[in-house]
């Protein structure tokens, strides 16, 4: 039995309250070096600059400066199951992001189809509601879009438009209860402080069904990994929708409106739609497919300590490891193969941080023969979903979750 290589969570140093604030707000990054070398993502037009000039962020892959799109370099996912705040990916739709936020005057408004509209300060949230914590993966709907074949337009992410954090805050259910949801409520709509540059751009708003909003898991987070949310990840409040794609996790959340009719705003009704088929999978050019709002996440697993093209010694014992998550339900198992799917074996799983979290997996590996070996990894979840053998495809580049594979050379 080999020694486990599961890594402890990176320890944070907090010294005094000033320390908390400064650590949280300044990012206190230890990553000072400006990496001059661009990174080549493994698809056409995949060269990305590694930048360090965004507030509270370490080295990130630049997809766009304004509004910011920053990808987490994949090696970060080998360092532990919780993605450090200063390496957590960033995705904004609208460029008019406030440059000053005052926690003293900030208000979260709850209004619409309620008995009593309320306006809450951050201290109200902390003082008046039971704290709630959950570990959950936040994954962009278009994570891995760059791997789509045929390619599709949109943010050309590799696999780093995702992250896992411990979110702390209050249950949305409790806040809605305070306002008193009236009978006949259908949906709850969320909006943040960001707006478009031109007046005609629709405000970014997303809605959830009322029952989902009151399920006791959907929450309003004021902390991420034990610190205030980084500015670019939604300071001071962010909606957390465990198991659902990140488009619903509204950043700089300041408005909650209970609706008694279906939300027809652009971002809910017309954007982020997927084909209503298993894995949102269609053929390129396929017509007449019913489209629905994107929703629950699918299981995924990744290699984190070995890359395509790696060279290993024949007969030498090594450990292959990675991360996996179940998506909308707990990860039940991870299978691994070193012979392109001939024989699958069960990977050993690391500590369980809850059903919506990343979980590490590892397998001992000894390649007995020279030549190329195709390693593959496949995650299963409690909803009965497993990663598919063939890559799902849709025109928006959403929900990729095909089995990952790497080719290694044994010498």
């Amino acid at each position, binding site marked *: 039995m080999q020694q486990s290589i599961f890594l402890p969570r990176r*320890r944070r140093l*907090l*010294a005094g309250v000033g320390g908390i*604030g400064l650590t949280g*707000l300044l*990012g206190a990054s230890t990553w000072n070096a400006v990496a001059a070398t661009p990174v080549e993502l493994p698809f056409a037009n995949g060269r990305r600059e590694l930048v360090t000039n965004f507030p509270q962020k370490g080295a990130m892959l630049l997809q766009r400066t*304004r509004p910011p799109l920053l990808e987490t370099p994949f090696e970060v996912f080998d360092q532990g199951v919780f993605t450090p705040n200063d390496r957590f990916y960033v995705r904004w739709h609208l460029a008019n992001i406030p440059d*000053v936020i005052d926690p003293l005057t900030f208000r979260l408004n709850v209004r619409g189809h309620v008995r009593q509209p309320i306006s809450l300060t951050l*201290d109200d949230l902390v003082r008046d509601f039971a704290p709630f914590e959950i570990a959950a993966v936040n994954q962009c709907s278009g994570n891995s879009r760059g791997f789509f074949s045929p390619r599709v337009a949109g943010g050309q992410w590799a696999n780093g438009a995702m992250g896992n954090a411990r979110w702390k805050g209050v249950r949305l259910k409790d806040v809605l209860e305070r306002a008193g949801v009236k009978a006949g409520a259908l949906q709850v709509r969320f909006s943040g402080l960001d707006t478009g540059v031109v007046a005609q751009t629709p405000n970014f708003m997303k809605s959830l069904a009322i029952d989902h909003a009151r399920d006791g898991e959907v929450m309003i987070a004021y902390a991420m990994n034990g610190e205030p949310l980084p500015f670019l990840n939604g300071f001071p409040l962010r909606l957390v929708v465990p198991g659902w794609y990140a488009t619903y996790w509204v950043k700089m959340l300041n408005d909650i409106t209970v609706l008694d009719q279906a939300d027809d705003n652009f971002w809910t009704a017309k954007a982020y739609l997927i084909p209503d088929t298993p894995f949102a999978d269609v053929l390129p050019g396929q017509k007449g497919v019913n489209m629905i709002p994107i929703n629950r996440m699918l299981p995924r697993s990744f290699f984190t300590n070995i890359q395509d093209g790696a060279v290993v010694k024949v007969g030498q014992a090594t450990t292959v490891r990675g991360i996996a998550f179940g998506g909308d339900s707990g990860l039940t198992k991870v299978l691994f193969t070193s012979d392109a799917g001939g024989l699958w074996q069960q990977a050993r799983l690391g500590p369980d941080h809850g059903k919506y979290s990343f979980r590490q997996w590892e397998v001992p590996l000894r390649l007995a023969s020279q030549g190329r070996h195709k390693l593959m990894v496949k995650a299963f979840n409690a909803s009965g979903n497993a990663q598919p053998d063939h890559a799902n495809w849709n025109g928006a580049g959403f929900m990729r979750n095909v089995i990952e594979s790497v080719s290694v050379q044994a010498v």
Partner: protein
Amino acid sequence: MSSSVRNIAVIRAVPLLFWAALATGSAWPGTADSEAAAAKAASGAVQSWSKVRAELPTSQTLFPPGNGADIANAQCLICHSAEMVLLQPALTQDQWAGEIDKMRNAYGAPLPPDQVGALARYRLSINGRHPPGG
């Protein structure tokens, strides 16, 4: 001093409860330090700051020279910087026109309709492909 520290500033006093909440009642790693911090907070040893000001970097990237680059630089950069556009896979002229129409119709880009064709041809010339058999 890293640039990430340089471009975010904290001014004025933070609501005490908010910060204390981050430090207490948690079984997370680092709790011991956090509890010490909370105790310090309770004793009133809090720095006087709170407003958060974030300075986001600006992009110097322009669309590369070509017939129509002036339209791209004048119009596209109103709402977003150029990098993501330049990182797209090669698209056909029709696909580029579709993307440009989406900017106009869905997001309200003030691009005059008679410039859509010229902008799509420019995008094709910079990063385009021709449809099979086309």
